[in-house]
């Protein structure tokens, strides 16, 4: 099994979630992060003092999937989250040793 983590633009969350559902994903978790990357960031002003903020708000999506589904999930995120401009974000694929569904105690791919 894999844990697929994607950092995406916040306004893409709904679209990506819908796309993942179609891919067959049955669950995911999302949270707010502040991302720093190639994307330029922006200037902010506080009472006349300008300063650069190189962190921009992103959404972090985590999906636990069975190995077989991983490629489809990745390409689904890639396609949906892409706008072509800097800041589209990244996907990371991590190995997972086990997954447990708390409610039933199921383990492994059944639990995903």
């Amino acid at each position, binding site marked *: 099994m894999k844990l697929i983590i994607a950092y995406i*633009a916040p*306004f893409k969350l*709904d679209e990506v979630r819908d796309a993942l559902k179609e891919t067959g994903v049955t669950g995911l978790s999302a949270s707010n992060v*502040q991302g720093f990357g190639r994307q330029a960031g*922006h*200037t*902010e*002003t*506080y009472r006349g003092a*300008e300063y650069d*903020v190189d*962190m*921009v*708000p992103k959404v972090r999506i985590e999906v636990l999937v069975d190995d077989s589904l991983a490629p489809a999930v990745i390409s689904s995120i890639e396609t949906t989250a892409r706008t072509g401009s800097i800041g589209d974000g990244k996907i990371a694929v991590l190995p997972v040793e086990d997954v447990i569904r708390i409610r039933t105690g199921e383990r492994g791919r059944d639990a995903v």
Partner: protein
Amino acid sequence: MEVNGADTSWILISSALVLFMTPGLALFYGGMVRAKNMLAMLMMNYVAMGVVTILWVVVAASLAFSGNEVSGLVGNLGLVGFRGVGLGNEIFGYSIPDSLFLGFQMMFAIITPALIAGAVAERMKFSAWVAFVAIWSVIVYAPMAHWVWGGGFIATQVKAVDFAGGLVVHINAGAAALALVFVLGPRIGWGNSVIRPHNLPLTILGAGILWFGWFGFNAGSALGANGLAAQAFMTTHIAAAVAATAWIVAESVSGGKPTTLGFVSGAVAGLVAITPAAGFVNFMGAIIIGIAAGVICFMALRLKTMFKFDDSLDVIAVHLVGGILGALLLGVLADPAVNELATGGMSQLTAQAISVVIAFAYSFVLSYVIAKVLDMLIGIRASETGEREGLDIALHEEQAYQMAE
């Protein structure tokens, strides 16, 4: 008439209350936008307190309340720069100082364009907004105020009445909102998924401030501390309470749950609808207006889906529809025992209907033209990147909330 301390006391605090409505409105609207557009929303409201005040003193007050030119179409320039406005009441002869009369009226001139902001939220450029507000205050608001309250033709020839601003404030703002929405087009992503409010508690607090301030708005429009002010106070409160309740009943009846946003939206709708009628109707009239406002404004929410326009925070359903409702119902419900200036009945209703059409048409057409011209000159819509990233950063280089440090 001499300046009267009691009336002055009441209009002083009423003016403060009406000014306080603009921050209240800012919160009411601000809570409904996404976090990334929060400050831009607040700023669209607050900036009216700056820009309109300046223009009011410089020229708009004069156009609205000085003399009566071109057969009731507009005032003259006699009060430009508040020239000659002193501590007494020599100019207007009300029982309050002249400066206070102009000040009370100024607060209305401020909140009216601020109301429009809700319709164009989350996509309009700040510079264009400031320009729009400035121009609109002078060439749309001031003449309309003149027609209705400054001795202009709606009061004297059409003989329609408007106690505290159904025409001048709500229909006027609502029609302008509609025009702007057409020129601007919808927000990115509108129609695909529901764009959700980021902080309803602030919206609900804002509605509380609005309700509080509206006592100054409506009961202050009696221009004195007397029985009529008390009557307007009570009809205002009753209509708000009834409309708020009616709205959540309507929600429940149409298969949903009673929502807090529904309750406060209903309250605002009731306050809007009673505004033209507050000093003309009896308590039964207030209840009827409240029910009508709660139910019909709730139903009017569907207009934007039916006709596919993105009125971000439902200014049209609440202010345009609510304002029309109140202005017309007043034609039917006016009780001469409350105020002999409006008799109710067919001729009153006709006058009201004519005034509604005039107010709507004038505001819609001029607002449309101003917006179009501004769009050609400087562009009225934020850049696509700015809209996605959020207007707070794009237009103001600020963020509403910071990650805990």
